[in-house]
């Protein structure tokens, strides 16, 4: 197949503009899970059944109402090598789950990479919208519009009482997972983070590390998502998430102000040391890179560093991941070599 543009460039089009509250909110994402009526879920489907699902869903993409979202590139997971899959996961264009499930697994990605439609993941259909900054409502509106187009042409597995029927009981009902990725260094530094995150979990939201379930939060990035999908309407889910995120933003902002006013010199020192390490290190592991990038991002947001566009940091967050590094340098690397290439890449990027 043709070389995948999506795995060549680190920064999706959608990431180039900042979006609302972009000094704290990196991105907003909405995913809705749907299944076709009278077909076994992908976990139990035969090859033939999975192929049929793919064909049926792919045909909906021909609907002229889909044109408003621009051309969609179709990618069959079986056609990709492991590295390309890894990069798509690192860019959040596909889920780790789809990367492992290559049996008629497919993804349809819009040119600006803000829309990706996954087929034969855990559910037959997953519609995902990604936007920069705090644009959770906008992401929902787009996802539901795409959903409407599918729904007009295929019969969904839907039940009056249970709503949209999904493979996992945690998605049933709306099938909606809305997430906001936040950079919260000041709450971590002032040790308020645990208190806030436990409060968040008490209002039906969950907090995860940046690459989803099971992974650790690195670089002070936290993903806040709704946990409840049944018994709340989509607008309630979105509003609840939005209002909690706004409150976290306020806490982070006041923590940043306090850090600046009470310990400006120490903050400057911390930020500049991290900047210095990124500029001159010869070896850096991914954990340290994430932490230093977080410090530098905070420095940029606080105006302590004024020569560095935040876009470069967004780019580096993706480029320093193992898959992208190997893609970029076209060599397979041992973890030790990765640390060297990572440092080299960061030096190049920041040196410009």
């Amino acid at each position, binding site marked *: 197949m043709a070389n995948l543009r999506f795995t060549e460039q680190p920064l999706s089009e959608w990431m180039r503009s900042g979006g609302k509250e972009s000094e704290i909110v990196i991105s907003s994402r909405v995913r809705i899970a749907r*299944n076709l*009526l*009278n*077909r*076994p*879920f992908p*976990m*139990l489907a035969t090859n033939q059944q999975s192929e049929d699902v793919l064909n049926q869903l792919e045909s909906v993409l021909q609907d002229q109402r889909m044109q408003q979202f621009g051309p969609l590139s179709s990618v069959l997971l079986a056609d990709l090598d492991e590295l390309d899959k890894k990069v798509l996961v690192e860019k959040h264009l596909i889920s780790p789950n789809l990367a492992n499930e290559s049996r008629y697994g497919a993804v349809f990605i819009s040119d600006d990479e803000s829309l990706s439609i996954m087929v034969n993941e*855990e559910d037959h259909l997953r519609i995902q919208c990604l936007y920069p900054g705090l644009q959770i409502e906008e992401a929902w509106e787009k996802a*539901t519009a795409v*959903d*409407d187009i599918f*729904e*007009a042409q295929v*019969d*969904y*597995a*839907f*039940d*009056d*009482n*249970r*709503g*949209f*029927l*999904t*493979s*996992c*009981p*945690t998605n*049933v*009902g*709306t099938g*909606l997972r809305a997430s906001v990725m936040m950079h919260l260094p000041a709450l971590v530094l002032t040790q308020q983070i645990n208190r806030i995150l436990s409060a968040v979990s008490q209002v*039906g939201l969950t907090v995860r590390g940046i690459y989803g379930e099971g992974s650790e939060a690195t670089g002070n990035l936290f993903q806040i998502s709704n*946990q*409840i*999908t*049944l*018994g*709340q*309407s*989509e607008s309630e*889910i979105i509003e609840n998430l939005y209002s909690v995120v706004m409150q976290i933003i306020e806490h982070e902002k006041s923590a940043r102000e306090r850090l600046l006013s009470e310990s400006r010199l120490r903050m400057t020192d911390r930020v500049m040391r991290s900047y210095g390490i990124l500029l001159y290190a010869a070896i850096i592991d991914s954990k340290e890179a994430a932490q230093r990038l977080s410090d530098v991002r905070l420095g940029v947001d606080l105006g302590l560093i004024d020569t560095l566009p935040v876009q470069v940091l967004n780019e580096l967050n993706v480029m320093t991941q193992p898959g992208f590094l190997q893609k970029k340098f076209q060599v397979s690397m041992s973890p030790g070599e990765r640390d060297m290439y990572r440092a080299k890449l960061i030096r190049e990027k920041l040196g410009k």
Partner: protein
Amino acid sequence: MHCQECGKRPATLHFTKIVNGEKTEFHICETCAREKGELIPGTSGGFSIHNLLSGLLDFTPGSHAHGTKAPENLRCEECGLTYSQFSKLGRFGCSSCYKYFNDRLDPLFKRVHGNTVHVGKVPKRVGGHIQIKRKLDDLRRELQYRIHQEEFEEAAALRDQIRELEKNISEE
């Protein structure tokens, strides 16, 4: 006798509560009892319906709750997934699993979501009658309220509205 909460499932639990000499009888199914446990008046403090039910809700193999199949025999006739496979995998095999495992799902959904019934988006093509049903539920609730308030004129108007909607459903 049907459950007085949901009106659908048979009442498997009957008990009498006496508060200050006032006797109240409850007839409910175990699902609703579990769900509405805290909402039943007078059950908080000293008497917990959850304690009463814990025996009934014990799903371990070999236990036989009233009239319900033991989980090891429970399976989805459509895809063949058994209930015990489901509880191990944490995944349904097909949408019919929801139907075959239905009686056991409320406690699970209650635990995961705090809710058991969908109130969100409804697919437009299948949704017509669902919207009407939801509207009917609202009207019936309001009717009860009006009757309770002895506002009989409003109640009569509501009753007519309800009849009209019910006619629409049966004509579909």
